[in-house]
C-alpha cells in the first residue's frame, strides 16, 4: 500500500519539530503519492513562513531538500481528475475542498491511507486518514 501524503507531511519533514522531521522524512523516503496540490501547498507554506525572514540557508538549498523529498513521490495526480467527487464530498461534509482532494485521492487509490496531522481531517475521515504519529521510524504505517 503506497501512502498518500498531505502537504503538511512534506512541511513537517522540512521545518517540523525534530521528532516530526524524522518520521516525515522516513515516510517521504519510501514511495508515496499525492495530488498535484501537494507541491503547490508546500511551496505556498514555505513562502508564507520563510520569505522575508533572516534565515541561514539559501533558496537553492531549500530547493535541493524539496527535490529529495519529492523524488520518491510516484504519482502527483492532477487535481482536475478528482473534482467531481471532491465537489460532492466537500459539500456533503461542509469541509474545505483542498483537504478533500487528498481524501478522495486516497479513497480512490484502493486501500491507501492518507497521512496527515490535520485533526479535522483525522476526525472526519477516520477510515482513510492516519496521523503521522501512527507512522513508524522507518516510515511504516501501523
Amino acid at each position, binding site marked *: 500500500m503506497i501512502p498518500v501524503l498531505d502537504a*503538511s507531511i512534506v512541511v513537517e519533514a522540512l521545518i*517540523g519539530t525534530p521528532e516530526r522531521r524524522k518520521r516525515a522524512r522516513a515516510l517521504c523516503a519510501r514511495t508515496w503519492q499525492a495530488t498535484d496540490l501537494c507541491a503547490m501547498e508546500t511551496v505556498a507554506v514555505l513562502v508564507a513562513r520563510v520569505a522575508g525572514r533572516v534565515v541561514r540557508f539559501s533558496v537553492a538549498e531549500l530547493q535541493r*531538500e524539496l527535490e529529495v523529498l519529492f523524488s520518491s513521490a510516484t504519482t502527483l495526480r492532477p487535481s482536475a481528475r478528482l473534482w467531481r467527487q471532491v465537489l460532492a464530498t466537500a459539500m456533503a461534509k461542509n469541509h474545505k475542498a483542498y483537504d478533500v482532494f487528498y481524501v478522495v485521492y486516497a479513497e480512490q487509490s484502493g486501500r491507501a491511507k492518507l497521512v496527515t496531522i490535520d485533526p479535522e481531517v483525522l476526525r472526519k475521515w477516520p477510515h482513510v486518514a492516519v496521523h503521522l504519529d501512527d507512522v513508524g521510524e522507518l516510515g511504516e504505517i501501523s
Partner: protein
Amino acid sequence: MPTRTPARTTTTKRRRRNPNEARKLTVRAVPPQLYARLVKRADENQRSLEAEVVALFEEVLTPPDVDAMWAEWDEKTKDLVLTDDEIVEALREVRGGR
C-alpha cells in the same frame, strides 16, 4: 519411415559474469558539440575519453549522502521550527476560505 532430425543437444555454455568485472557500453549519436566538450574536459582532467565518461557517470549517479544533507539542513534551520498546530494553521492560511 522418415528419419527425424535429432533434437539439438549441444548447449552453448554462457560464461558466468564476475559481478566486479567492468561492463562495456557503446554510446551512439553523441552530438558533435557535446563530443567536443567531452574531449576538452577529458584533456583538462588528463583522462582518457573512456575514463572521463565513467567519471561523469559516477558524478551524476552516485546517490547523495542524505543523512549528512539533513543534518546540515537541521543545523541551518534550528531557529525555524514549526509545531503541528503552526503547520496546520499555515496550511489553512494558504488555502484561504472554502
